[in-house]
């Protein structure tokens, strides 16, 4: 019996025990607008003055009380400053164009935004019955990779990888080319990344290969491949209960891929923290991913918010990125999204933290959100040294925002109205 069958059987058995429930009791004194008019009519007459003076007096007292409380609150706590828009000097340091998947109910769009102006320079709906899954950006600030999936039938999901090249000159906004990928049917996720030189595409996907096993496959292809001649290389890794790798990206040249792996110290039924970074040379023979790669950074051992007192030295990285110079690891912390936020008094909010690769010790906090402001901070792009970082922050109680930290200051970036949010995996926005 599969795990789905077991879950169905058990939950249906439990649900079948629910047979009788108490009746709904609706309160009779709710003041809908029509009811209010009706009640007001009934009160006209000898008691008319009393009918409106008393509520007015009560309202005046409430307003006075509210104003007093607001004044006291403002006196006790400094007002929250709105995050300023990134000035041109900061915008000049980051890529000009970024791609984002937007979603309004069941409608999805692929959009490329000019962050200097906030204008959408490319915007098209998901073709056919496709579900847009992920976007990535290349180093040239002009080329993006979009992946999507289609349910062919009940048992088969088929994946498509498209390369979208932006032409800023008038008359031709972009062109699109499919990259033929193989053996990806029924993958749970699929991400693809163009190498900095534009020669190769790395494709990463997960499959459930056993009741407890997730297998991740990385394939490399020629970026111009339009027919199914097969991948150049293929590596696989498996883990129980969670994907064995995360945060795949190219690093430095067309021959190195880096990715994060779970902190070995994490176990149990909670989401793992991907606090280690490994490097894979793409000329290595196909085979076992872990054997073909090497650890280049071991971050702090994670400590989930639920499992003990907060410690700034023990964090759980929602996403981890190595800067292009290879010297610094940028960790976006994860709090309060997949796990309950049980830190007494909310000692700290989500943050971006930098660690020197060599020592693995915390070097500096690039930015920390206010206490109790929790969510996944996902670094999307960093400059060579990590002094300017673009990140996505889908907060637990707020809509997704784009932020850039530069020179220790936080700025906002324009973002379309309905970014696909809530994932906290950074797959829906790419710089």
């Amino acid at each position, binding site marked *: 019996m599969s795990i789905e069958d*077991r879950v169905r059987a058990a*939950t249906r*058995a439990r649900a079948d025990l629910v047979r009788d*429930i108490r009746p709904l009791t609706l309160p009779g004194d709710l003041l809908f607008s029509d009811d209010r008019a009706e009640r007001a009519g009934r009160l006209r007459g000898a008691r008319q003055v009393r009918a409106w003076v008393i509520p007015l007096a009560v309202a005046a007292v409430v307003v006075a009380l509210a104003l007093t409380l607001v004044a006291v609150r403002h006196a006790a706590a400094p007002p929250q400053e709105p995050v300023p828009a990134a000035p041109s000097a900061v915008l000049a340091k980051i890529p000009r164009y970024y791609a984002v998947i937007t979603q309004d109910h069941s409608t999805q769009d692929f959009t490329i935004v000019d962050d200097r102006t906030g204008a959408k320079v490319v915007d098209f709906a998901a073709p056919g019955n496709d579900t847009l899954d992920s976007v990535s950006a290349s180093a040239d600030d002009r080329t993006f990779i979009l992946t999507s999936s289609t349910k062919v039938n009940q048992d088969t999901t088929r994946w498509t990888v498209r390369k979208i090249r932006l032409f800023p000159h008038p008359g031709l906004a972009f062109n699109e080319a499919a990259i033929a990928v193989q053996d990806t049917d029924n993958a749970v996720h699929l991400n693809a990344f163009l190498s900095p030189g534009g020669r190769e595409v790395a494709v990463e996907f997960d499959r459930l290969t056993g009741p407890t096993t997730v297998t991740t496959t990385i394939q490399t292809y020629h970026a111009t491949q339009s027919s199914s001649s097969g991948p150049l290389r293929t590596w696989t890794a498996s883990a129980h209960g969670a994907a064995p790798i995360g945060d795949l990206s190219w690093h430095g040249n067309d021959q190195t891929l880096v990715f994060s792996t779970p902190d070995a110290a994490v176990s149990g*039924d909670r989401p793992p923290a991907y606090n280690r970074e490994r490097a894979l040379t793409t000329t290595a023979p196909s085979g076992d991913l872990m054997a073909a790669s090497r650890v280049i950074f071991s971050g702090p051992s994670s400590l989930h918010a639920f499992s003990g007192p907060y410690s700034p030295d023990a964090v759980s990285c929602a996403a981890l990125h190595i800067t292009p110079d290879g010297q610094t690891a940028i960790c976006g912390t994860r709090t309060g999204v997949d796990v309950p936020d049980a830190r007494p008094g909310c000692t700290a909010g989500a943050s971006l933290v930098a660690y020197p690769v060599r020592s693995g010790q915390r070097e500096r906090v690039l930015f920390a959100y206010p206490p109790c402001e929790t969510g996944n901070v996902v670094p999307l792009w960093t400059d060579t040294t990590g002094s300017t970082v673009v990140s996505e922050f889908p907060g637990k109680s707020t809509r997704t925002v784009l932020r850039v930290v530069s020179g220790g200051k936080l700025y906002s970036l324009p973002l379309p109205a309905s970014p696909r949010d809530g994932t906290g995996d950074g797959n829906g926005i790419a710089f």
Partner: protein
Amino acid sequence: MKPPTEALPQGLDVTQQVTALYQTHSLGLVKLAVLMVGDQPTAEDIVQEAFLGLYRRWRALRDADRALGYLRSSVLNGCRAIHRTRYRRQAIVLDPPTDMASAEEEAVLAEAHREVLAALRQLPDRQREAVVLRHILDMTEAQAAETMGVSQGTVKSATSRGLANLARLLNQKGAR
């Protein structure tokens, strides 16, 4: 269990419409909440609150046909709030609470079913919701995404991770 999809009865006042909705859908929603929170009294409270909320906000509901979607989302929000409250309470007790089953559940449900339900309750909220909506209510990814207020990609990943976690928890239990 299928997600309820019937349209609202027409020509009734607000109280009658909400009551009609309650008569049609409350049982299914209580079953959903029971799977989320584990006990029926709490589940009934959550569903009652959801219907009261709907009653209060009826005029603000732009599309009455969306009432059911509103109710489902309200029930899920109520379940999340219960989990948060329980978690805070757990943080101040000396002994962690055991996974308690009701007397009826204890008496009627097979041991194997109780293990699955206990494992389901150990999942993070989002994974539990995705598994229940997709595999128990048989919702599509789009329906589940709208109910949970997340993207279809999130539903997809939460479902697969939830199932993998369930399988691992059950295997661990089996190994012990």
